[in-house]
C-alpha cells in the first residue's frame, strides 16, 4: 500500500512539474508578440528619430534625402479620407440598417450576409485589381485621386458594415417597441431611436476602417498612385500619392538616408494610428450604452 502511494505521489509531482513547465512555455510564447512589437517600435524610433523634423510635413519628395518631405503623401492620404469617410459611412451604415431592420429572412439576405463575410477575407491587392479594371480603365478615371479613394472605399466597406450590424443588433427590442407605440413610422424609429443608440459602436467601426485605409499600400500601388509627386492634387482626377506609398518608395531604396527617412515617416504613420485607436477606445468606453 505504501509503495503504491509513493508511486502515486511521484506521478502527481511529475504532472505538476509538467504543468509548471508548460505554463512558463505558454507565457514565453505570449511574450513573443509583445517582444516583437517592442523591438519594432524601438528599431523604428532609433532609425527615424533623427530625421523627424517639420521639413517632413512641409517639403515635397526630393532626390536628396535631406530635403525630402512627404507633404504630397500626407495631403493625398487626407484627401482620400475626405472622400472615403462620407461615402463608406453612408453606404456601410445603410447596408447594415437594411440587413438588420428591413431585410426579409430569405435566401437572398443570407447570400448578401455570406457575401459580406467573404469580402472581408479577400486580399486587399485583389481590390486593387478591381479598381484598376473598373475605375481606372472602364470608367476612364485614369490613375487619379478619385480612383484610389473609390477603391479604398470598397475595401473598407465590409469592416463598417459588420461593425454597424453588431452595434444595431445590440439595441434592445424594447426601444423600437417604445418608438412604435408612440406612433412613429419604421423609418422614424430607425433614424431617431435605433441609430442614435448605436452610433458609438458604428463610430468605433468607422475609426477601425479609417486606420485600415491609412495603412493600406498595395491597392493604391495597383490603381497607380505615383511614387514621385511634387505637387498637391488640385482636382479629383489629378495624379496622387499617399503616406504608405511614400514610405514604400523610401524604404525600398538602397541608400541608408532614405531608409531612415522612411522610418521617420513610419513614426508619423504609427502616431496617427495610435491616436485613432485611443479615440476609438475612448468612444467605446464613454458612450457605449449598456442595455
Amino acid at each position, binding site marked *: 500500500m505504501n509503495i503504491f502511494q509513493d508511486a502515486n505521489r511521484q506521478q502527481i509531482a511529475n504532472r505538476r512539474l509538467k504543468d509548471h513547465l508548460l505554463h512558463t512555455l505558454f507565457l514565453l510564447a505570449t511574450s513573443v508578440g509583445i517582444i516583437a512589437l517592442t523591438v519594432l517600435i524601438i528599431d523604428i524610433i532609433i532609425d527615424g528619430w533623427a530625421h523627424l523634423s517639420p521639413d517632413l510635413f512641409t517639403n515635397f519628395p526630393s532626390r536628396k534625402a535631406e530635403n525630402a518631405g512627404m507633404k504630397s503623401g500626407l495631403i493625398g492620404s487626407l484627401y482620400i479620407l475626405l472622400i472615403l469617410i462620407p461615402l463608406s459611412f453612408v453606404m456601410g451604415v445603410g447596408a447594415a440598417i437594411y440587413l438588420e431592420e428591413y431585410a426579409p429572412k430569405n435566401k437572398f439576405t443570407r447570400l448578401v450576409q455570406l457575401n459580406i463575410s467573404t469580402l472581408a477575407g*479577400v486580399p486587399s491587392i485583389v481590390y486593387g485589381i*478591381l479598381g484598376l479594371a473598373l475605375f481606372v480603365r472602364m470608367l476612364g478615371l485614369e490613375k487619379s485621386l478619385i480612383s484610389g479613394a473609390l477603391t479604398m472605399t470598397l475595401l473598407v466597406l465590409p469592416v463598417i458594415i459588420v461593425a454597424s450590424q453588431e452595434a444595431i443588433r445590440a439595441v434592445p427590442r424594447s426601444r423600437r417597441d417604445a418608438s412604435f407605440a408612440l406612433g412613429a*413610422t419604421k423609418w422614424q424609429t430607425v433614424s431617431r431611436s435605433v441609430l442614435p443608440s448605436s452610433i458609438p459602436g458604428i463610430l468605433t467601426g468607422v475609426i477601425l476602417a479609417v486606420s485600415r485605409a491609412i*495603412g493600406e499600400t498595395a491597392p493604391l500601388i495597383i490603381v497607380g498612385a505615383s511614387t514621385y509627386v511634387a505637387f498637391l492634387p488640385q482636382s479629383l482626377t489629378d495624379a496622387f500619392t499617399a503616406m504608405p506609398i511614400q514610405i514604400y518608395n523610401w524604404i525600398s531604396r538602397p541608400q541608408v538616408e532614405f531608409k531612415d527617412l522612411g522610418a521617420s515617416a513610419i513614426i508619423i504613420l504609427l502616431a496617427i494610428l495610435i491616436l485613432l485607436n485611443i479615440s476609438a477606445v475612448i468612444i467605446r468606453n464613454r458612450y457605449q450604452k449598456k442595455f
Partner: protein
Amino acid sequence: MPNKSQSTLSADANEYSNPFKNSRVSKMNKVMPVLLFLCAIVSVLTTIGIVVTLLSETINFFKVVPIQDFLFGTKWSALIEPQRFGILPLLTGTLMITTIAIVVALPIGLASAIYLSEYAPDKVRRIIKPILEVLAGVPTIVYGYFAISIITPVIQFIFPGAGVYNALSAGIAVGIMIIPMICSLSEDAMSAVPRSLRDGAYALGATRFEVALKIVVPAAFSGIVSSAVLAFSRALGETMIVSLAAGSTPTLTFNPLDSIQTMTAYIVQVSLGDVARGSIEYGSIFAVGMTLFIFTFLLNILAQYISRRFREEY
C-alpha cells in the same frame, strides 16, 4: 386592430382628413428602404465586379498564353524576353512564404491563446489583449520595414550565405503579422467552451495543463482549425512584406534563403512600371490575381465550413 369596415373607411379618408399623417414622413418611410437596399447591394456588386473583371481579362490572357503553359510551366519571366508565363515559380514562392509564416505563427499563436484563456489572471489579460490588438493594427508596410531592417540582418548573421532578399525573412515577418489573428480567433473559440467542462476535469484532479490540452483544445478544435485556415489565407494575400523583403526573382526553389517572388509581389512589380492596356503583361496581372483570388476564396469557404460543420454544441 381595426375591423375590416373601419380600415376601408380610414383608407378612404387617408389622403385628406387624417390630421396625424405627415406626407413627408410617409414618403421617407417608403423611399428609405429602397435606398438602404441599394447600399446593401453595393457589396454584392463588388463581388460580381471582382469575379467578372478577373474572369474576362484572364480569358483574354489565355487566348495569347495557352492555359497549360500557365498552369504547368516552370519558368516565369514576364518582363524580360523571352517571355514565359509558367505560374509554378510564383506559386512555390507564395506557398513557401505562407508555410514559414504558419510554422512561426501557429505554435506561438495557439500557445498564447491557451495562456490567455486558461492561465492568465484577469489583470494580465487586460494588458496583453490590447497589445495584441495594436500588433494586429500595424500596417503591413511597417512589418516590411521590420523584415528588412531587423530580421534580414539577423538571418544573414546566422546563415552567412543568405541573400539581401530571402524568403525566410519575409516568411517570419508575415508569421508575426498573423500571430494576433490566430491568437484572438482561437481564444474566442476556447472561451466559448463552457466552464462546467473544465470544472468537471478539475474535480477529477486534472492539472491546468491537462484541462487545457485534453478538454479545452479538443472542444474548441473547429474554431482553432478555422482560425489557422483564415490566417493561412491572409498570409497568402499578404503583399507589402513580401515585395519588400522576399525579392523579385521568380525561381522554382525550396531553399528559404533564396530570393523568390510571390504572386502578390509580381502584381506590385508590374503595377510600379507603366503597363499599356491590352498588353500581355497587363493581362498577366489578372491571371495571377485570379489564381490568388481562387485560393483565398476556397480557403475562406473552407474555414466557414469547418467552423460550422465541426462545431461542438453545448
